[in-house]
């Protein structure tokens, strides 16, 4: 049965947040423009005062759903709104920035956080993507697998979530390996 169901208005940020992130800007004007661009793109956000230990630019930041960090950065870049960075609310956590590389016969698997991307070292074709749990990952699988590392739209341009951001890091490392690092069988 197909269920007719009304699209619900998005809840207020305070009701739904898995965890909040904060976009920091140099100026108040940029923060206001950033909030406007994000809301126009349908991203839940609000202007807030950053806590003192996170103030790097102006005294206004934009609070976001941390899960949507990838989409937020993309929208701000496309809107031409400069921002300093997206930070974890407690200011003490950083996104994982290490990758692990495993070689299996003619293939190379790059692991970044909870995501793995495997490519054929002879052709540069992405042959598999595994891991992750966000809804855009099966979509990214359909968009990237069987395509060349150099020809795909990068994951953070297609996806919206932190899983997509991790996959993007894996893709970036895989591309660097394909372009230059020696690929030795192990």
């Amino acid at each position, binding site marked *: *049965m*197909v*269920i*007719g*169901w009304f*699209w*619900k208005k998005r*809840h207020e940020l305070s*009701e*739904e*947040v*898995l*965890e909040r992130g904060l976009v920091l800007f140099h100026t108040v004007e940029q923060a206001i423009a950033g909030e406007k661009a994000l809301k126009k793109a*349908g991203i839940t956000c609000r202007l807030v005062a950053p806590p003192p230990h996170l103030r790097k630019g102006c005294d206004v930041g934009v609070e976001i759903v*941390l*899960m949507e960090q990838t*989409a937020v950065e993309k929208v701000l870049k496309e809107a031409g709104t400069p921002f300093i960075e997206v930070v*974890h609310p*407690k200011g003490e*956590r*950083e*996104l*994982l920035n*290490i990758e692990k590389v*495993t070689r*299996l*016969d003619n*293939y190379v*698997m790059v*692991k970044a*956080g*909870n995501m*793995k991307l*495997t490519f*054929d070292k002879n052709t540069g074709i992405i*042959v*598999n*993507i*595994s*891991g*992750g*749990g*966000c*809804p*855009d*990952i*099966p*979509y990214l*699988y*359909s968009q990237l*697998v069987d395509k060349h590392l150099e020809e795909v739209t990068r994951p953070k341009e297609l*996806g*919206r*979530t*932190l*899983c*997509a*951001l*991790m996959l993007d890091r894996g893709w970036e490392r895989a591309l660097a390996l394909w372009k230059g690092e020696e690929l030795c069988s192990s």
Partner: protein
Amino acid sequence: MLLIAGTVPVPEMPLVLSPAHWEGDCLRLAEYDLPYTQGTMAMVSAALATTSYLGLPPPHVLTAGDIGTGSGTRLIYDYLAEHIEELHPEVLALHYCQPIIALMKKLYEAVSQLSSPPRLVADAGSMYAAKAANLSPHFDIFTPDPSEIAFLADFEASHPAYISRYLFENMEEKVTDLIEKAYACQGASKVLLVKGKVDYVAKEGKILHEIQEPNIPAMECIGGTGDTITGMVAAFLSGELDPEEAAVLAAKANRAAAEIVKPTPATRVSAIIDAFPQVFKENLCAWSGICIR
């Protein structure tokens, strides 16, 4: 009834509730054909292969399109929270969804009010949400991989992308410690099946089973091979096995399917799923005493 809830990467897909069945090379839900690739449909396919073999009713699937906006996730969770009593599943398995803590809490509140609540299974984004909502101990089984057990063991982390570096480094070698930590910080479900080079089944803080053979490294590369394990676990639970036994059988079956298929890192999960009937026929009776004539 086994009810599997999770999104599919088809933006225009409305909210659909339907039993799953095969239609050629596709899974059919209502009038929709969906390929059984990585994600919710790989899980559903593995569950359907299992229920078909065991002669159980097919899994019902509640799904909607979502490519990361959370739109389909909201439809699924809102519908579940409002209709869980009339659906009254014996097993509720939650899968690829945007991890939205408020929705998970709302659903759990509805589930907890049922006179006979379902067995609860979670993997992927739904597992992330359950952990972030501090609901892990209320779930019967989670099926994390090593990076996800590191997340469950990290009290502060909101997503596997934010786990501590020290937990991420050499995590495959530290899985047993991470399992212990996950239970200690209330990040673990009652039973855990940690999928990896070695599959660990743990219950109430103790590792009860380690499944290591056959070890086929290519499986780690193949998108959906974790989803198949979760699907089989859910299906075995719907056949009234307990979570510990369901976990052991699912882990063994996945490895046995890989042994038949002999995958490369480029193999698709559909090839693994297609081998399950043979795996069950050849092994299930010996493994569990479940003998289908």
